[in-house]
């Protein structure tokens, strides 16, 4: 069959159309219904980048349109595609490490094909545009959210934004706190790379949302599956990468203003970007300076479910970032600073004293009227979370004869205050101060033997957490996690061979970690020091086969590991929001994931399909499991949960497809199916997202679009049936009804939503995009299995969203 496909000749017209579709597909396939109405300027340039001597395609070359400062990188087959251009004459530049830049002039009417031939030669990198980490895993399944699809999520939290991608769901605490779940896993197992720096915050907590302003990013990429070799430990479920646009190097000042209004909660979000640059005309060496300033303001009040309003569910955010870079002929330096500030109200009815309170709340079905007030307010009262996250990044890149060397340094400071309802208006329930330094030296070598591309790097990460006293002299034993100091280091090598239709990638990594904990155990006065060491090798192997422009096959075998976090080791106390008594286990071992996945893409003019099948086996998977017996406290009985480990298997299918029914009408379908099994105890794992199926019918006409979306979320029928701890005597187990859970999983639900989008273009640079979306169109009352408040409150009701984006 392969040879038949090999031998099939495709005429150039058809071929270019297919290439176009492929690019369209790869950049916008995993996106929602609401996305991409016809662009205001919908011309495009595409083509292939070749080595002039060998005529081999060049992977990862940068191609950009000089006049628009708009670019892309070539894909595994050396192809590129730049869309949304207006008619005109453009200068197209192709460049990659080790080759000379090549400039072409292209006259663009509707579309143009431009082959770019690069010759090896002297270093020449006046304006290297590092748009993305070039050593991105090309053999790993990747879903990208950008342009119109990203615009249609503006104003939402990062977690909600990522729900657009099949296989990604959220773990929620009410409607204001949501964190991304990839293939059933979350928190520390999902690594977030914010502008090239690994986000280090309080991600261990299930009610700690990522401290990131999504407006900073112009592109969000999700790598599904283990990706430990490139990104280091923890990347067991996947990696989320947020990237801003490359800083401008032209003297034009530009920017955009986004405004979003949500009727539910009267939430207003405004975000602005201003950017520009300097480029001395008569400098001896070419040089340029670029800057960007960005800020976001968000304020929302109490939100409403279909039948009642929830007290104290407001949110407020003020964020800003500044970035600047300086470029010389063969080096550039960049500085970036961002600050994220948020206050999130936690639903007043969620403060649970003990299991009796919880059972009463479950029995009532709806919260007490005192917690569902008639009057709306923006005021945020106790309990609430108050979080600040600062990120400083310095990056320098230097072009050597043999390749490219870069140094990235980062400092992050995370301050989290969780204020509960305490007597005497005492305000500290939990306070965390985490400071993290990261450093990476990366060397991307010039293609060896015109065949082997790759990179090697060294990472280091040092962090210190302070919850009480000073690091070595904690003053309190009543903290949720103790003071600690953590040092990790890693070294890796990834190499890739690209040959016509084949691509092979392999990599290896070594990591070590040293954790020193300083704590006062319960009921003791003296400080105990604990020290833990872990080390591990991880590997990756990927194979990409592309027989023709319709089919693409990807086989991927990767591994990743994760050392137990401090809360998993040393938790010992009552968790109020959850009405549970949680106990860590200091003898936990590191968990190791082996992920096998297979992805098929099929693309024709009318039909595009992506099928992703995965099997993620995790040895020593750490999770919180109910013991089924109550712990007696002065506040009454609390169900006991222990951190434990087991061998687990996550396997599932993500399927997404797009069908062009008629010239203006298309149907898009996304299906996520997941089974997570505790192999050791032969039963399903707890808290796994149920299967879901989403369908969107879209009508597009000129610069307008209308869409209707239906989302079906099944009931989670795969829940544990029994308590797994054999050391707990049967007669002590009293919460046995739902395998230790307090209530059965909520029933299946169906949600409808609709959107209308309109683009207005004033001239080449200035434009206005407006849209009206209605979420939960029928005001359906429902509850989600992965929302911790599902025991006592419904999800958010109908919500009209008005968005406007003005770019200049």
């Amino acid at each position, binding site marked *: 069959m392969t040879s038949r496909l090999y031998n099939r000749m495709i005429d150039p017209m058809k071929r270019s159309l297919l290439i176009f579709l492929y690019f369209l597909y790869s950049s916008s396939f995993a996106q929602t219904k609401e996305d991409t109405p016809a662009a205001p300027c919908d011309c495009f340039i595409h083509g292939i980048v070749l080595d002039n001597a060998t005529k081999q395609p060049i992977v990862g070359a940068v191609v950009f349109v000089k006049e628009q400062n708009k670019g892309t990188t070539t894909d595994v087959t050396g192809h590129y595609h730049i869309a949304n251009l207006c008619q005109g004459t453009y200068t197209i530049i192709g460049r990659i490490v080790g080759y000379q830049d090549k400039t072409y002039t292209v006259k663009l009417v509707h579309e143009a094909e431009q082959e770019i031939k690069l010759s090896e030669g002297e270093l020449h990198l006046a304006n290297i545009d590092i748009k993305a980490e070039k050593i991105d895993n090309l053999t790993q399944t990747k879903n990208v959210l950008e342009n119109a699809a990203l615009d249609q999520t503006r104003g939402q939290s990062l977690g909600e934004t990522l729900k657009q991608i099949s296989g990604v769901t959220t773990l929620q605490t009410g409607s204001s706190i949501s964190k991304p779940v990839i293939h059933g896993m979350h928190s520390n197992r999902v690594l977030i790379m914010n502008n090239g720096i690994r986000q280090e915050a309080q991600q261990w907590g299930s009610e700690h949302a990522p401290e990131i302003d999504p407006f900073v990013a112009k592109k969000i990429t999700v790598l599904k599956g283990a990706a430990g070799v490139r990104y280091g430990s923890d990347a067991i479920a996947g990696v989320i990468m947020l990237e801003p646009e490359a800083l401008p190097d032209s003297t034009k000042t530009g920017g955009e203003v986004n405004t979003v209004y949500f009727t539910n909660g009267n939430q207003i979000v405004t975000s602005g970007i201003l950017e520009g640059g300097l480029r001395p005309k008569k400098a001896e060496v070419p040089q340029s300076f670029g800057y960007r300033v960005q800020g976001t303001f968000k304020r929302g009040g*109490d939100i409403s479910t279909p039948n009642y309003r929830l*007290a*104290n569910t407001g949110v407020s955010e003020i964020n800003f970032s500044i970035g600047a870079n300086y470029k010389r002929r*063969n*080096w550039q*330096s960049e500085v970036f600073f961002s600050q994220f500030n948020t206050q999130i109200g936690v639903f*007043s009815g969620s*403060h*649970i*004293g*003990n299991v*009796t*309170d919880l059972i009463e709340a479950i029995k009532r079905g709806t919260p*007490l009227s*005192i*917690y569902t*007030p008639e*009057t709306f*307010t923006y*005021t945020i*009262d*106790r309990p609430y979370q108050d979080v600040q996250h600062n990120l*400083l990044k*310095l990056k*320098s890149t230097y072009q050597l004869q043999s390749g490219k060397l870069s*140094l990235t*340094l980062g*400092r992050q400071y995370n301050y989290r205050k969780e204020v509960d*309802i305490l*007597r*005497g208006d*005492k305000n*500290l*329930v939990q*306070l965390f*101060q985490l400071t993290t*330094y990261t450093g990476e030296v990366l060397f991307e070598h010039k293609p060896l033997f015109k065949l082997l591309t790759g990179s090697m790097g060294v990472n280091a990460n040092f962090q210190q957490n*302070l919850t*009480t*006293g*000073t690091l070595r002299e904690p*003053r*309190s*034993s*009543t903290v949720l996690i103790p003071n600690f100091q953590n040092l990790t280091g890693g070294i890796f090598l990834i190499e890739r061979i690209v040959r016509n239709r084949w691509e092979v990638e392999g990599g290896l990594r070594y990591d070590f970690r040293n954790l020193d904990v300083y704590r006062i155990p*319960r*009921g003791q006065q003296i400080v105990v020091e604990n020290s833990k060491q872990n080390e591990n090798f991880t590997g990756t192997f990927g194979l990409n086969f592309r027989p023709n422009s319709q089919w693409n096959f990807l086989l991927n075998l990767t591994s990743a590991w994760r050392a137990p976090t401090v809360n998993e080791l040393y938790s*010992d*106390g*009552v968790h109020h929001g959850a009405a549970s*008594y949680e*106990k860590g286990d200091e003898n936990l071992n590191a968990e190791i994931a082996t992920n096998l996945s297979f992805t098929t893409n099929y693309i024709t003019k009318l039909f595009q399909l992506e099928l992703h099948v995965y099997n993620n086996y995790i040895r020593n998977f750490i999770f919180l499991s109910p013991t089924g017996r109550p*712990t*007696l*406290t*002065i*506040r*009454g*009985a*609390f169900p006991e949960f222990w951190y434990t480990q087991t061998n687990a298997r996550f396997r599932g299918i993500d399927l997404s497809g797009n069908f062009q029914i008629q010239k203006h009408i298309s149907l898009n379908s996304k299906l996520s199916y997941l089974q997570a099994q505790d192999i050791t105890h032969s039963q399903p794992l707890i808290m796994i997202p149920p299967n879901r199926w989403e369908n969107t019918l879209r009508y597009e006409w000129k610069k307008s679009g209308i869409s209707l979306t239906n989302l079906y979320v099944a009931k989670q029928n795969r829940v544990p049936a029994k308590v797994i701890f054999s050391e707990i005597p049967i007669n002590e187990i009293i919460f046995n009804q739902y395998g230790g859970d307090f209530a059965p999983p909520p029933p299946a639900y169906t949600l409808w939503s609709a959107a209308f989008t309109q683009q207005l273009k004033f001239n080449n640079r200035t434009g206005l995009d407006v849209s009206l979306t209605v979420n939960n169109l029928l005001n359906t009352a429902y509850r989600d299995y992965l929302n911790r408040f599902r025991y006592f409150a419904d999800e958010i009701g109908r919500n009209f969203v008005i968005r406007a984006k003005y770019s200049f």
Partner: protein
Amino acid sequence: MQKNRIIVSGFLILALLFSMVACKDTAVDVEEENEIITTVKLNFTSGGTTQTFVFNDPDGDGGSAPTKFDNISLKPNTNYTLTVELLDESKTPVENITDEVEEESDEHLFVFTPSPTSLLTYTYGDKDARNFPIGLTGTVQTGAAGTGKLKVQLRHQPPVNGKEVKDGTPTTGSDDVSLDFNLSIQ
């Protein structure tokens, strides 16, 4: 060569800048540290004699089991005055939480529930500013001899959206204390 030197010094300057913002040592001083209630004392007074029954869990929730959980033993058909004391004995000096409850009496309510109900009758002996009971002081009238349980609850009912919610019933709020004492009337 020259160029290389510029690059190297560039890197060094960046590293220096970086380390400047890097070194600051701070301490977290929790001025208003979390209180925990470790001890509940029930003082039953009748005819000049006081009997005290204690629940004591010195390390708070979880950890080691409570060290003391007395059985309440009272005489039948007798009138007692009942006062409640709450202590945090994990602190030095010991913190008296009774005072705090008294100060914030508008958001606290003690609830005493005997089972079977025939064992005793509780009557509140104190009122907050809005005329709702508190339960730090009250009277107990015991019934006929028998055994059962006495549930002692401290409901914490702080304002919601700035509005007071305490209405004299235990419905709103959450338990700060919830203990089932064994009770015998003999």
